[in-house]
C-alpha cells in the first residue's frame, strides 16, 4: 500500500511538471508579436509608412500633397471627369509616346496585372472575374457602340467609368500610356 502511495505522489509531480510546461508553451500566441531584445533599435524614430502620428491634424503619417501643389515631374491632367471631358478626350487626346517609346511588352505586363482580370488577357471582356460571374457586362474592346480611341481609354483609366474605378494611383502617366498602346493593339487584333 505504501508503494502505491509513493507512486501516486510521483504521478502527481509528473503531471504538475507537464502542466507547467503546457502553461509556458501556451504563452506564445500567434496573434501577438514576439518579444524584442532592444525595441529602440527595432522601432523607427522617423515615421513609418502608414503609421499613426500626432504631428498631423488627422493623426496619420500618409498625407495628401498640399492643395495647389504637385510632386516634381508630375504632369496634371487637364481634361475633366465629365461626360463632355470623356468626349473631348475621345476626340482629341493622343498619346505623347512616339513609336520608339512604346514598349508593348511592358504594356502587356501591366495590362495583365491591372486590366486582364476583368477585360480578359485578349481584351474580349472575358477575364477571370467575368468567367467566375463575379463581375458581369465587361465589353469587348471592339464594341461598336463604344468605339474606343486612345484618348478615351486614357480618360477611362484615369477617372474610371461607370462601374470601373480609377487606376490613376496604381500606374503612373507613362505606364498608363503604355497600357493604352497595348489596349489599342488588342482592339486591332480583335477587329481583324
Amino acid at each position: 500500500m505504501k508503494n502505491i502511495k509513493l507512486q501516486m505522489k510521483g504521478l502527481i509531480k509528473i503531471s504538475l511538471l507537464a502542466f507547467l510546461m503546457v502553461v509556458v508553451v501556451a504563452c506564445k500566441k500567434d496573434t501577438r508579436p514576439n518579444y524584442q531584445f532592444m525595441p529602440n533599435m527595432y522601432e523607427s524614430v522617423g515615421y513609418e509608412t502608414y503609421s499613426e502620428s500626432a504631428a498631423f491634424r488627422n493623426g496619420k503619417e500618409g498625407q495628401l500633397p498640399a492643395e495647389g501643389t504637385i510632386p516634381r515631374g508630375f504632369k496634371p491632367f487637364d481634361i475633366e471627369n465629365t461626360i463632355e471631358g470623356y468626349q473631348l478626350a475621345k476626340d482629341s487626346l493622343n498619346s505623347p509616346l512616339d513609336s520608339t517609346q512604346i514598349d508593348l511588352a511592358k504594356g502587356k505586363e501591366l495590362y495583365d496585372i491591372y486590366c486582364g482580370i476583368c477585360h480578359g488577357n485578349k481584351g474580349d471582356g472575358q477575364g477571370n472575374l467575368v468567367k467566375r460571374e463575379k463581375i458581369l457586362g465587361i465589353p469587348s474592346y471592339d464594341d461598336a457602340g463604344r468605339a474606343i480611341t486612345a484618348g478615351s481609354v486614357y480618360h477611362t483609366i484615369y477617372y474610371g467609368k461607370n462601374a470601373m474605378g480609377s487606376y490613376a494611383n496604381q500606374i503612373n502617366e507613362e505606364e498608363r500610356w503604355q497600357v493604352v498602346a497595348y489596349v489599342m493593339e488588342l482592339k486591332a487584333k480583335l477587329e481583324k
Partner: protein
Amino acid sequence: MKKSYQSLEVNSTNNMEQVTRRTLGKNILQLSFILLLTLSTSLFAQEGDPAKGKTLFNTNCASCHNLDRKMTGPALRHVEQRLSDDHGLDREWLSAWIRNSAAVVKSGDDYGNKIFDEYNGTAMTAFPQLSDQDISDILAYTAQDAPKPDPATEAASAGGGQAAQSGTSNKLVLGALALLFALLAVALILVRKTLNRFAEAKGVEVPEDQKGLPLWKAFVQNQFLVLVTCIFLLLASGYFVYGYLMQVGVDQGYQPVQPIHFSHKIHAGDNGIDCKYCHSSARVSKTSGIPSLNVCMNCHKSVYEYKGETTAEYSKEFYDGEIKKLYAAAGWDDAEQKYTGETTPVKWVRIHNLPDFAYFNHSQHVTVAGIECQTCHGPVEEMEIMYQHAPLTMGWCINCHRETEVKVKDNAYYEKIHAELSKKYGVEKLTAAQMGGLECGKCHY
C-alpha cells in the same frame, strides 16, 4: 470552382466527340428540328428567349444594370411592364432608348430626360448592334419573376450544417476515446488493488524491495555519473536557452486579427487576382503598400455579396458583413450607389516588419530581380488569414543571396559587370552574393 468549369468543358467536348462519331444520322434529324424551332421563334419574334436574353444581358447590360438592384443605371426587373403601366411607354420607345439613348434625350422626350437627370446625366452606352430579336430576348429575361429562395442554396446551407456536425462528431469521437482510456486506467488500478488484496488474503508474501541504499544516494556516491549528468544537463539547458534567445524578435507565424477579415485565399487564390493589382507600389517603391480603399472599391462596387464556397466558420453572412465593413470605411452607400464622403481609416495590423536598422526595398526584388512574391511571403494564395511565412532574419536573407543566381541574360545593364565579375570568380553564373549582396552597407547604414 475553376476546376469544375474546366471539367465541365472537358466533359462536354468529350460528349460531343462521342456523339459525332456514333450518331451522325440522328444528328441531321436533330439539326432540322432545331432549324424548324428557330424558324418558328423568328415567326413569333416578340416572344423572346429568356435564356438567350440572360447571356445578352450579362455581356451587354450587366456592367451598369442589375435586375433587382440600382447600380450605375436603374434596376431592370419587369422594366417593360413598369414603363407601360406607369409611363405609357411601349417597346418601340425602349428599343429606341437602348439603341441610342442620347438621341432620345436630345429629342426632348419627357421620361427620357427625367431618367437622364436622375442618374446625374450619365448617358447610357448606345447598342446599335442589338437586333429586335436580341432586345425581345433581353426583355423576356427581365420579365422573369425573381427566383424564390433557391432550394440549391438551402441545400448548401444544410450542407454547411452537416460540415459543422461532422466537426462536432470528430470531437465526440475524440472525447469517447479519452473516456475509454480513462476507464482503462481506472480498471488497471482496480485490478492491481484486488490482486494485492487477494495476495494478502491468501497469505502470499509479495516480496518487498530489499531496503538497500536509496537510488539517489547511490547516484550521488557515483561521481562519474554525477559529472556526466551535470554535463548533459548543462548542454541541454544551453541548447534550449540558445533556441529561446534566437527566436526573440523573430515573428515567423505571426497572425494578427485584422480589423476586416480579408481572405487572400479568395482574392489571390480563387479569383486569381495578381498580387501587384492591390500591392502596386511593390513594383516601384521600397514598401509593398497596403492598398487604399479605392482599390478595393474598384471591384467591390460591383461585388456586393459573397457567392463562393463557405464553411461553418466562414459563412456567406460573415463575408457579406466584412464587405459591409469595407463600405462603411470607404463611405460607400450601397443602396444609393454613391459615396457619402464620410470615411474612416482601417487600422490594419502590420505583419511583416523589419527592424529599423535593416534596409529592404521591394522594387529591387520584385521588378529588378523578378522574384515571385511567394518566395518570401509563402503560399499567400492559400491563406484564409495572412501570416508571416519567413523568419525575416539576417541569416535567412544571406542564405537566399548566396543561393540565388542573378538573371543577367538579355540584360544590357549587367553585361559589363557580369563579364568582369565572372572572370574574377571564375564562374559562369553569378549569385546575388557575388554581385555584392553580402556587403554590410547594402542593408545597414
